[in-house]
């Protein structure tokens, strides 16, 4: 594929992605604005893939080494942090208590790390 053909193809999918991006979140309740922001934040963590490509360049000099390595560190912080934060937010969104359902999900994490001492208050009912 020539460079121009590739470019045209890339621009095509770029434009389609714009419309898809608008379409896919066109009706979000206010309640979910924050988790959605956090979720999209995790998705652009895909930048780590680009960072890996830079770091995996053959015959690179010290400059690219350092920059690429830094980029991998930052990118993976974005990915992991983004998804974990979003998950912690969404974990909170439950309907009325259904204790059985909860244990079935198989999340291995403890009930909660936050709450600073007042957790007991939430445990009733």
């Amino acid at each position: 594929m020539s460079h121009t053909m590739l470019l045209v193809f890339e621009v095509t999918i770029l434009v389609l992605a714009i419309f898809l991006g608008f379409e896919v979140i066109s009706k979000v309740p206010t309640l979910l604005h924050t988790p959605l922001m956090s979720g999209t934040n995790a998705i652009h963590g895909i930048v780590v893939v680009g960072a890996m490509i830079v770091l995996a360049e053959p015959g690179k000099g010290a400059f690219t080494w350092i920059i690429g390595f830094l980029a991998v560190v930052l990118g993976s912080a974005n990915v992991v942090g983004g998804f974990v934060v979003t998950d912690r937010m969404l974990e909170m969104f439950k309907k009325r208590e259904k204790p059985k359902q909860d244990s079935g999900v198989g999340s291995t994490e403890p009930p909660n790390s936050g709450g600073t001492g007042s957790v007991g208050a939430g445990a009733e009912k």
Partner: protein
Amino acid sequence: MSENLSDLLYLISIVTFILALRFLSNPATARRGNQIGAAGMLVAIVVTWIKAGHISWWAIVIGMVIGGGFGAVAARKVKMTAMPQMVALFNGVGGGAAALIALAELHRILPPPGTPTDDVSLAIVLSALIGSISFAGSMIAFAKLQELIQGRPITYPGQQFVNGAIFLTALGLGLALVAGVQDQWLLWVLVGLALVFGVLFVLPIGGADMPVVISLLNAFTGLAVAASGFELENNVLIVSGMLVGASGTLLTVMMGRAMNRSIANVLFGAFGKIQESGAAAAADTDGGAVRSANAEDVAVMLAYAHKVVFVPGYGLAVAQAQHDLHQLADQLEAKGVEVSYAIHPVAGRMPGHMNVLLAEANVPYDELHELDEANGEFPRTDVVVVVGANDVVNPDARNNQGSPIYGMPILNVDDAQAVVVLKRSMNPGFAGIENPLFYNPKTVMLFGDAKASVDQLIADVKNL
């Protein structure tokens, strides 16, 4: 792994991201959506790692362990109240990564006789510029929300002019690069200017506008990542980055709309700056005095009410009083009081912040009422308890055209028979605006830390 196979696997990742966004738009499926997205991300990372083969694979692993470890620990350790700044932080590092990729790519291509094609140099300039702005802006947003620096808007004369000049200079350097001036140092200076611009651009923004800015910076990072995709000829970066760029932009607009403000107004209006018309706004208080009450009086009011509505705000989050509030609500319900919560869309520091917080305390979903529903109830409500909220109940938004929040939909708590405001002191809220509600004859103030006050109320209601 062949190029075709890896592209197909990348397509799987892209599909999962689209599904993730779709699912994230509905409370029932949101968490599943996030998990699907994470799985797709893992696919993309593993594919890329295998493709990298033997070259520096261990450096990639070490980098990912460091970055991922930091991300996991920080995201897990942080309290629910500090979520907004974590989103800003993780967004910033993503933007930083995009800018670094641009620097590395130009460095790879430039040594003579290399010449980047116009589209690649344009992509390099864009991702360096936008990525750096996003990085610096997000770090300032983080510092503001973490209260490392002053949360209020920081303004000085000629600010817009200075910002504009810096941005245009950076843009000029970028154009020179695209036009064919072959010098890496141009890009470094551009990155430096963009970083300064990012700082200056977020400094004057404060108050309830922070979430909107973080959302905008999130969209920026998406765009920067899409540009990185053009540099590296990588589809998954282009599509995912643009998905985030587009959906993030729309989300930013929707957030602005929820606050009845345009994005331009958010960015350049220095919301929350203490207005010169502050004196005029204060005049609206009718010279009324603030009445303060003690917890016992309030406990009596609550216990003998038919209907009590709690209005939580950021003060609840700071004091970590959500569990205590739920306990108080349970006690009142046991005494036959009808209890509900009125949630303003932008209460707290992020939209949905209060829903997350109260859900953490196991408050049932159906007791959380949104703006319109709650406003319909206030006339039939005996006591409204405002817990650490301020601007979202400020009647100036309705009445005072000079107020910076004029026109923002608010909770009309002054329609209720009585209002109790739990507040640390008479200091104006995060946005720095005077609130005439506190001077309303219906209002009594219960000063103190929200958690301490609620605990005191629990004890006093119990003793009745």
